[in-house]
C-alpha cells in the first residue's frame, strides 16, 4: 500500500486510457490489470455527434481514482485551465501536470511544469507533475510540495524502457514523496526494473493498449510490478565479477 495525498492505493499500476482498439478490450484490460487509477485527457465534445461513446460510461467510476492530465498544454496557464476544467467534472481533484515543450520528442517543459505545479498547489489540487528524469528538477518539484513525482522512463509512447536508470535511482533515493515512473515503458521487464529501482508505482498506457494482446499484457504488467516491488523489498544480492558456487564444495563423492 502507498499513499498520494489523501488517497491510498493497493495496486502500484496506474493505467492510461488512450489508444485502445475498442472499449471491450480496454475494459477487460483494465479489470485484469487490477489498477485503481486511470488517466484521462480533457478534450472538446463533438457537438454534432450526440451519441459519441465514452469509456467512462463503460466502467463503474466509483471503483477508480481518476487522474486527468493536462496534455495539450504548452504553458503553465494552459495547464491550469485544463486542470480547472477537469476538477469541474466533480469526479476528481488529482491532476497530472503534462506540459509538452517539444512536439517531436514530447519531452516536458521543465520551467512551465514547475510554474504550473506551484500554481495548482496554491489552488488546492493534488498535483502529480510529469517530468523528465532530471534529478534536481524532481527535487525542485518536491520542494514546492507536489504530492508525487512522475519522471519519464523514456519519451512518451516510445517503448524504449528506462534509458537512464542511474538518474531514476537518484530521484527515487532523494524523494520524500512517491515516485511514479511514467512514459516509455515497453514491456513487463521495464515495469519490473522501475519497481526494482524502488519506484512506488508505474504509469503506462501504450505498452498495454498497442500490445498484440492487450489483456494479456495488462496481466503481465500487473505481475511484473508485483514481482519488481517484492524484489526491491527483499533486497537484491550485490553484483560480483566472479562466480560463487551455490553447491557445497566439500563432501563430493569420488
Amino acid at each position, binding site marked *: 500500500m502507498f499513499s498520494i495525498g489523501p488517497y491510498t492505493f493497493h495496486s502500484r499500476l496506474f493505467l*492510461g*486510457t*488512450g*489508444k*485502445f482498439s475498442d472499449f471491450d478490450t*480496454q475494459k477487460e484490460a483494465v479489470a485484469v490489470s487490477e489498477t485503481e487509477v486511470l*488517466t*484521462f*485527457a*480533457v*478534450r*472538446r*465534445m463533438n*457537438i*454534432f455527434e*450526440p*451519441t459519441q461513446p*465514452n*469509456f*467512462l*460510461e463503460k466502467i463503474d467510476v466509483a471503483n477508480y481514482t*481518476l487522474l*486527468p*492530465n493536462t*496534455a495539450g498544454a504548452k504553458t503553465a496557464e494552459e495547464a491550469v*485551465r485544463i486542470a*480547472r*476544467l*477537469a476538477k*469541474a*467534472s*466533480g*469526479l476528481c481533484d488529482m491532476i497530472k501536470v503534462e506540459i509538452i515543450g517539444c512536439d517531436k520528442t514530447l519531452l516536458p517543459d521543465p520551467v512551465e511544469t514547475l510554474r504550473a505545479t506551484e500554481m495548482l498547489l496554491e489552488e488546492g489540487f493534488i498535483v502529480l507533475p510529469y517530468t523528465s528524469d532530471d534529478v534536481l528538477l524532481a527535487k525542485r518539484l518536491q520542494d514546492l510540495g507536489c504530492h508525487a513525482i512522475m519522471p519519464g522512463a523514456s519519451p*512518451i*509512447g516510445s517503448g524504449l524502457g528506462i534509458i537512464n536508470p542511474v538518474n531514476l535511482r537518484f530521484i527515487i533515493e532523494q524523494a520524500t514523496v512517491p515516485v511514479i515512473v511514467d*512514459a516509455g515503458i515497453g514491456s513487463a521487464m521495464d515495469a519490473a526494473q522501475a519497481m526494482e529501482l524502488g519506484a512506488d508505482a508505474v*504509469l*503506462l*498506457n*501504450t505498452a498495454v493498449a498497442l500490445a498484440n494482446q492487450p489483456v494479456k499484457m495488462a496481466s503481465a504488467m500487473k505481475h511484473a510490478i508485483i514481482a519488481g516491488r517484492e524484489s526491491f523489498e527483499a533486497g537484491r544480492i550485490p553484483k560480483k565479477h566472479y562466480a560463487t558456487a551455490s553447491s557445497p564444495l566439500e563432501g563430493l563423492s569420488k
Partner: protein
Amino acid sequence: MQLTVNGHTVDVPIHVTTIGLLLDHLQLNKELAIVELNRVILQKDERDEATIQPDDYIEIVQFVGGG
C-alpha cells in the same frame, strides 16, 4: 440566437436560454459535459442553470482516453 460553441458558430432556438437547455438541444451527455461560459468554468451544481445570451463563447469538454 447565435452562439460560438467549441469554435463553431451555432444557431439555437430562442427557448434555449440556459446551459442545461443547450446541452439538451445538442443532445450531449450531461453526466460527462464540462462547460466553460465566456472563459468562466462552471461548477457542476451551477452549470445547468447558467443563462446564455447571444454571442456567448462556450466550450464543452469531457474526459477522453489519454495517458
